């Protein structure tokens, strides 16, 4: 199905046997899409023709909870990505999406026994057991009419996960959802809704990838995270899109009193990325820590960053971005810390570092702090630099080729992020960086 029409939206809703409120939400998204304009402050995405995007591509299978039942062709893709292996070795649960639908979902029994809920979003929307909690939270942080691609997402969302962690529950190993967009010229619009209840703790990993095609693909997912009182959430992402992808994702979290969210993001690939995870620190003493790395190679515009709103006293945030660019790649680091009046004792710190790897690349850091409260502290640092000739000479004098020396310097530059990731993801990230440096990605 291509483009965006009322018939398409209604058909999708019907196919998914959704409750009326969800259908209405889709329709309000559709309406907003028609009214809203393309963002004007951002990279030019006029080449993206939505009429040519397949908004819904159903994989040729129903969802299963055993990898054995996944058809060979699809299974092969996930095997190559190492997902079934990773699940065996140390994940509490795994969801896997192929194009528009979740094809695999499984939660370890012991974690299920803890009362943790991990379901495909459609199931959660249909299931009466979760009707109340889902309705109270679904698209309440990312609103259907707040920007063009949130509207699009609301209209055609498909796939994604719902996660609920009950009060004072410690999920000891991470949960992971993996999104694979395999169909050429298609869009992926998964929705992730996470609620970490009082005093609970969760680490969620999101992985995304797509193979290379000559036609434009679009990713406009949404992530909504509710971190309740004294809860802790870590949200890690390694995205590795093909270079024909428009990655226009919206992520948002709200953190209550004493709660904490950590974002760790590695953003690779895509033609254009516009992504700025936002955190609302709503309760006293809530905290946010954001660490992200991006790489803009040939022909890519990576516009990435983070936003934090300090809406309560003694809230604390750190944004730390590292961006790399090479060839004619453009990397923009857009960050904002907004301290509202009344957020007494709030502290915000932004540090944006960019490294330009060769001549034609561009990097821009745009850290912004708005301080509406006298009794608060905010600071920002930004730097754009090149690989130091001195450091290259030094490492080469130890016997490293220039290319290896560069890779090592870049790995050092991004080490703060790889340290935060589970080891296999850190390795994947270093591998992606190496491939980008070699120009083989």
């Amino acid at each position, binding site marked *: 199905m291509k483009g965006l029409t009322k018939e398409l939206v209604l058909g999708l809703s019907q196919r998914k046997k959704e409750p009326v409120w969800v259908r209405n939400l889709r329709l309000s998204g559709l309406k907003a899409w028609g009214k809203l304009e393309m963002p004007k402050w951002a990279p030019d995405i006029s080449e993206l023709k939505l009429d040519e995007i397949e908004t819904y591509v159903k994989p040729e299978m129903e969802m299963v909870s055993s990898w054995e039942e996944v058809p060979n062709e699809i299974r092969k893709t996930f095997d190559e990505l190492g997902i079934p292996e990773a699940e065996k070795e140390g994940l509490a649960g795994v969801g896997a999406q192929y194009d528009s639908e979740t094809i695999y979902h499984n939660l370890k029994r012991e974690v299920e026994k803890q009362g943790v809920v991990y379901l495909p979003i459609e199931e959660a929307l249909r299931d009466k057991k979760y009707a109340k909690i889902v309705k109270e939270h679904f698209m309440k942080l990312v609103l259907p009419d707040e920007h063009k691609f949130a509207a699009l997402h609301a209209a055609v969302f498909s796939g994604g996960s719902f996660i609920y962690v009950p009060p004072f529950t410690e999920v000891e190993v991470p949960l992971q959802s993996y999104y694979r967009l395999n169909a050429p010229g298609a869009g992926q619009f998964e929705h992730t809704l996470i609620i970490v209840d009082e005093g609970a703790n969760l680490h969620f990993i999101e992985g995304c990838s797509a193979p290379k095609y000559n036609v434009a693909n679009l990713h406009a997912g949404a992530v909504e995270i509710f971190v309740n009182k004294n809860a802790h959430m870590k949200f890690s992402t390694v995205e590795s899109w093909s270079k024909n992808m428009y990655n226009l994702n919206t992520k948002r979290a709200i953190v209550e009193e004493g709660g904490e969210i950590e974002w760790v993001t590695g953003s690779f690939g895509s033609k254009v990325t516009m992504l700025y995870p936002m955190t609302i620190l709503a309760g006293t003493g809530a905290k946010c820590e954001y660490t992200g790395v991006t790489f803009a190679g040939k022909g890519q515009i990576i516009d990435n960053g983070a936003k934090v709103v300090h809406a309560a006293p003694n809230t604390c945030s750190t944004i730390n971005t590292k961006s790399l660019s090479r060839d004619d790649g453009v990397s923009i680091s857009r960050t904002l810390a907004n301290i509202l009046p009344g957020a007494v004792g709030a502290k915000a710190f932004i540090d944006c570092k960019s490294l330009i790897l060769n001549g034609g690349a561009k990097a821009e850091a745009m850290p912004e702090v708005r301080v509406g409260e006298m009794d608060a502290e905010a600071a920002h640092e930004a730097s754009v630099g090149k690989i*130091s*000739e*001195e*450091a290259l*000479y*030094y*490492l*080469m*004098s*130890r*016997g*490293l*080729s*220039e290319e*290896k*020396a560069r890779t*090592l*310097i870049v*790995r*050092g*530059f*991004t*080490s*703060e992020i790889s340290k935060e990731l589970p080891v296999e993801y850190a390795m994947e990230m270093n591998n992606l960086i190496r491939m980008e440096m070699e120009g083989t990605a």
Partner: protein
Amino acid sequence: MKFFGVKNLRVSTKEGKEILSGVDFEINKSETVVLIGPNGAGKSTVAGAIMGDGRFITSGSVKFLGEEILSLPVSERAKKGIFMSFQNPVEVPGITTTEMIRSVLEDKRGGFVLLDEVREGISENAKKLGTNIWFSERELNVGFSGGEKKKNEILQMLALSPKLVILDEIDSGLDVDASTRISKILRDYQKESGCSYLIITHNMRVLRHLEPTRAILMKEGSVYAVGDQKMLKTVEKNGFKAFFEQISEKGVK
């Protein structure tokens, strides 16, 4: 085959300023040669030109183990067995000394090297140096004191087992005990490996346990005199100025 030889080495900056105006000297296998001279004589430039410092434009010849190396990339010179301890070691954030050495060894051997293997080697050498293994687990030279940086250079040298070691003021920033300790380490490494040293220094302490066979005195971009330990002692006692005056009176060079 000569071990190492520099012939008519000329170096200028990219702006065209001449620093070395034709330098000649040789180093034999297992020999220790000391390079001395007043500030600005061009000693570090000699070291940099041998290693391949990209800021310089060079001409002439530098042969190592029978091969002309002056046009080789820095890394190739290092791979052939030349190591230079930097006067000002560079800080490289985010990677540890251990990780860096691992990368070099992997490149050399063409396969995966376990970090633990690298650590083992380093920890032994760190003991000799009187430092801890955690030293090499810190980000490469970042926030190191002057002395720590120099010790780290020696750790790297030992891990990479070079054949020709250029030490550019290894003793600056080191305390007396550390200088003596490093002098012993250098002696032991030479005994064990048969390496040669080209040592640039203003301080004879680091030579205490070594047996320099020759001293090369540089002045204003060229070799002024070649002598032995006696010349080193005279210079140490009376200074360069007196030495130059004495020589020009005698009319010899």
